[in-house]
């Protein structure tokens, strides 16, 4: 099942900011309480919005912007169904909140008027839909598991446990002293009566079509990037003789490389030794890189050939040249593309040098201001359940190179995550349910939302200790980020400075809903393995042993 992550950023009337916060707080209190007097939380959302995984409402204040109200939602299926459910549950509440927001000055203005006028009955969802932002990068921890499946598989674990070691049971247990296969068979037989769905094969979490599209997108992205980087080479290779071209490339590359080498050190006192080494990482993936080159040349040539052929056909029509057919053109074009690729040894070091120039002049914010009142409000809401929530907005460093790097970087990272992070693991971490980045205010600010497991501190420690390279790459573009080196080094390794920087960018998660607040990503995957095992009519002894380890 495909899942959707979106956010709706809305500018707030400064005069109504405090009112809006109070409205969100009141809404949270109302939904959190169990009217039936029980201990259930957010019952109405759980029953009336059955596709919803996580939802939050926060108000971000900033020194250089008016407050921003942001609704974040993560749900199963396309947005249409979600907005319908949302309208039914939150319509009237949102209308009052929208009245605290500014009227957009573009074509959404009339819709805003219609929704917020006194006694309006116009649905609010279409307005929110019109103001929706799609994430630049997103990550789904238990990708493809619907909310209902997560809940029913968690319930199954409870049943399994009761069956295996319920306290009301007496006498010898039938599950002891047998092989894993026997255990699997016995348990499955016992559970089938109440869980007939165990007879059905597990629905695929990610369909083959989806998977294919994920890969295709990444390949197209890589080809376009390489093509862009080798553009100077393509032109020069055509203009200059081959030996002149190669000589020029090698000499320039050596020069660039030497300059980069000279500037390789971190700023004084900021360099941190890391286990990650880019060169060994690349060397370890040489086969992949080789395949990528072949794929690139073939794809780029295929992309370019029809255009070139068409141009020669046109020229031929006007008598200015000879028509070259698609088949004739392929090899010369492929050759040129391959030679053009050589210019990567110049363009890459050039970009790195430019980046080092910027990095060595960046400022970092050592002691960002943290509003004590907001901090207390954040902490008061944290660590009640297994999960927590954070929202953050940071301004983005200006400049043409940074803009290109962050745009291309986010696009690439997003596509890569779709291909690689399919089992919840981000590197060696598995604590993120739904997280996303999105650009705000004409890409001058970067929004980040995460629904994660355990405390905020442990979540950030995880990143600092296990994924500082990726984190520095993704967030290092933020104004005030600790000093970085080559885009990926140092940066987030300065744990305390990074944490205080991240803390200062946060807002209070005034309304936050999780459909399964006590389940971690890791648990959901475990429950899924147990359920999938039980859906099998029989398992091999080895598979059964692995399966039984999860019980």
């Amino acid at each position, binding site marked *: 099942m495909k899942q959707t992550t979106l956010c709706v950023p809305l500018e707030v009337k*400064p*005069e109504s*900011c*405090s*009112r809006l*916060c*109070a409205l969100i707080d009141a809404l949270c209190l109302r939904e959190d309480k169990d009217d039936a007097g029980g201990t259930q939380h957010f019952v109405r959302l759980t029953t009336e919005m059955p596709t919803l995984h996580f939802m939050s409402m926060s108000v971000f204040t900033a020194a250089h912007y008016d407050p921003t109200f942001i609704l974040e939602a993560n749900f199963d299926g396309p947005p249409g169904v979600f907005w319908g459910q949302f309208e039914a549950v939150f319509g009237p509440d949102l209308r009052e909140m929208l009245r605290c927001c500014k009227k957009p000055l573009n074509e959404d203005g009339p819709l805003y008027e219609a929704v917020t006028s006194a006694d309006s009955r116009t649905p609010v969802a279409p307005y929110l839909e019109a103001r929706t932002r799609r994430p630049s990068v997103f990550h789904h921890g238990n990708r493809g598991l619907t909310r209902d499946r997560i809940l029913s598989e968690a319930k199954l*674990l409870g049943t399994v*446990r009761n069956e*295996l*070691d319920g*306290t009301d*049971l*007496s*006498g*010898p*247990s039938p*599950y*002891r*002293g047998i*092989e*894993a296969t026997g*255990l699997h068979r016995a348990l499955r037989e016992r559970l089938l009566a109440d869980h007939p769905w165990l007879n059905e094969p597990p629905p695929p979490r990610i369909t083959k079509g989806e998977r294919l599209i994920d890969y295709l997108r990444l390949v197209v992205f890589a080809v376009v990037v390489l093509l862009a980087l080798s553009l100077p080479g393509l032109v020069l290779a055509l203009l200059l003789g081959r030996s002149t071209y190669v000589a020029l490339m090698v000499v320039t590359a050596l020069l660039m490389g030497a300059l980069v080498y000279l500037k390789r050190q971190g700023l004084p006192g900021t360099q*941190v030794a890391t*286990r990650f080494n880019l060169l060994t990482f690349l060397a370890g993936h040489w086969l992949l890189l080789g395949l990528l080159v072949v794929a690139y040349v073939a794809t780029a040539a295929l992309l370019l050939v029809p255009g070139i052929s068409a141009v020669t056909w046109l020229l031929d029509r006007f008598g200015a040249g000879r028509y070259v057919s698609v088949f004739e053109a392929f090899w010369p074009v492929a050759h040129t593309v391959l030679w053009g690729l050589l210019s990567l040894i110049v363009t890459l070091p050039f970009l790195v040098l430019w980046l080092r120039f910027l990095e060595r002049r960046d400022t970092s914010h050592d002691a960002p201001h943290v509003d*004590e*009142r907001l901090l*207390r409000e954040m*902490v*008061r809401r*944290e*660590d*009640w359940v*297994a999960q927590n929530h954070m929202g953050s907005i940071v301004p983005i460093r200006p400049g043409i190179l940074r803009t290109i790097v962050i745009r291309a970087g986010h696009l690439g990272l997003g596509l890569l995550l779709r291909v690689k992070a399919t089992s919840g*693991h981000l*590197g*060696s971490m598995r604590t993120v349910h739904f997280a996303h980045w999105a650009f705000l205010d004409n890409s001058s600010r970067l929004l980040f939302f995460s629904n994660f497991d*355990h*405390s905020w*501190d*442990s979540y950030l*420690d*995880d990143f600092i*200790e*296990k994924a500082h390279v990726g984190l520095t790459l993704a967030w290092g573009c933020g104004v005030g980020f600790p000093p970085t080196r080559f885009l990926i080094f140092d940066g987030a*390794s*300065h*744990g*305390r*400075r990074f944490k205080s920087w991240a803390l200062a960018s946060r807002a209070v998660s005034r309304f936050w809903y999780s459909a399964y607040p*006590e389940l*971690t990503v*890791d*648990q959901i995957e*475990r429950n899924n393995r147990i359920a999938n095992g039980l859906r099998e009519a029989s398992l091999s002894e080895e598979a*059964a*042993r692995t399966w039984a*380890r*999860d*019980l």
Partner: protein
Amino acid sequence: MGEGSVSQTGKRQPTWKLAQAIASDTQGLVVTGFGHLPNGRALFLELPAGSGPGGGAWLKVLEVVAPVTPAVPPAGDEAVQPRAAALAFTWTGLERLRLPPTALASFARPFREGMMQEDRLRRLGDRRGDEWQDTVIAGGPVWSANTPRRPPVERHVGAYDVAEPCKDKVVKTDLSVHAILLLYTETADDAGQWAAAVREALRPHGIEVVRELELLLDVVGADNVSREHFGFADGLSQPEPFDKDGFVFLDGTKVCEADRVQGVPLGEFLIGYVNGHHESAPGPVVPGDGWGDVGLLPQHEAAQGFKDLGRNGTYMVVRELRQDVAAFWRSMDENAAAIQARDPRHSAHVTAEWLAERVVGRNRDGHLLCPGGYLKADPSGQPDNRFLFHESDPHGVGCPPGSHVRRAHPRDALAPTAKDRQTLLAAANNHRILRRGRKFGPKIADDRTDDGQVRGLLFMCLNTDIARQFEFVQQTWLLNRDFATLSEESDPLVGPRGRMTIREEPLRRTVQVLTYVELAGGDYFFLPSLPAIRYLASL
């Protein structure tokens, strides 16, 4: 119990030392648990309120009757010291010493707010909302620093503000503790006499000893290992500091590189040195003029015109934990009986002892549980502590994944794959504490019969970043209900009642553990350097 650990004694492996240049400025407790002095007292002091200068005058008296022991052993051998002392203050204690307000504001947030701050209590598993949890003695802890409610955030009232009530709650304890004085002696008699002398000397200054615990190391047998009240060897796994600038020595040589398993930067335990985040942990400062004899303190590196109060000091977490020995062993008996009833043919090996070993993760002598037995002793005959979990026992078939030692320091156990082991080990070492606990109360005669006596462990640990070290260990490892892909279970030894999974092939066993350890009091202390104590005495 690994969480609160009794110091080891005897001549085991060589212990680490500080470079001479800083050792004389640092409290001895940082480098040693005074294992050669098996007796002792913990005196919890309440200081008088007052104003004007003179708040620290009593420290000059203390300097005579119980001088704080430096980290440099006299005449080269610490074993000749018949007495040792350590001293630390809570935030309210420093306020009573009349430290200037800016200095009081310069301490780390956890210390300023105290352990009894409501959100912190929730993270530590002690209290949720208005309810004390069952890992706390009935009625709540009896002592703490009683740090006052955080001052209301100064707030300009804006034209469009919507009233928001202050929601901070105050959690108070009967006793207020402002300082802790730890006395270590060879004999129990000497401890009693010394404590009486200290009481006597401090009384004229209005200082009350509001609580006193008799501390002891209980070394039985030839292995020189002390045992906590449940009967298990304790204090075995400690971090081994190193310092890239050469301030740590082991056996006379500088330790500049991390030990593969236990290596942790010195800055994790001492302010002023490089820590796990590649910087010196932020420490407190005092204004460079007007308050006390600031000439005793070094210049602060970043804050121009301020003096460095933190250098060579650290934070100490103290939690008085009561242990119910009879409940522990009876519960093990019941669980063993329950398992045997459900599985009469294959559970001959499941005894109370077997279960208790799995709860702890080691046997009574301290040898780690491994698939098929125990880890072999190291060449000196002591329990080996250089092991890694993922290597030898990835699924926790030997040492259960949720056992106390595995939770208290998972080493590489949380690595999802073998190639992540090194990363996870390094990550785990970013959350280490230096344990300095000692047990209190008499030994139980029969471990199945409750004798009505109060006994337990005075858990003490040193760290420079309370949130990232002690609180992380407590929240993210010990009490984490989803630790290591387990679910709905906590630390079986120090956590609340609940399930515990013991892996066996093909099917795990589960036991229902109860609450055996309860919090009776606690707070965060600042363990100052010796120059800082002399400065405080000048206030």
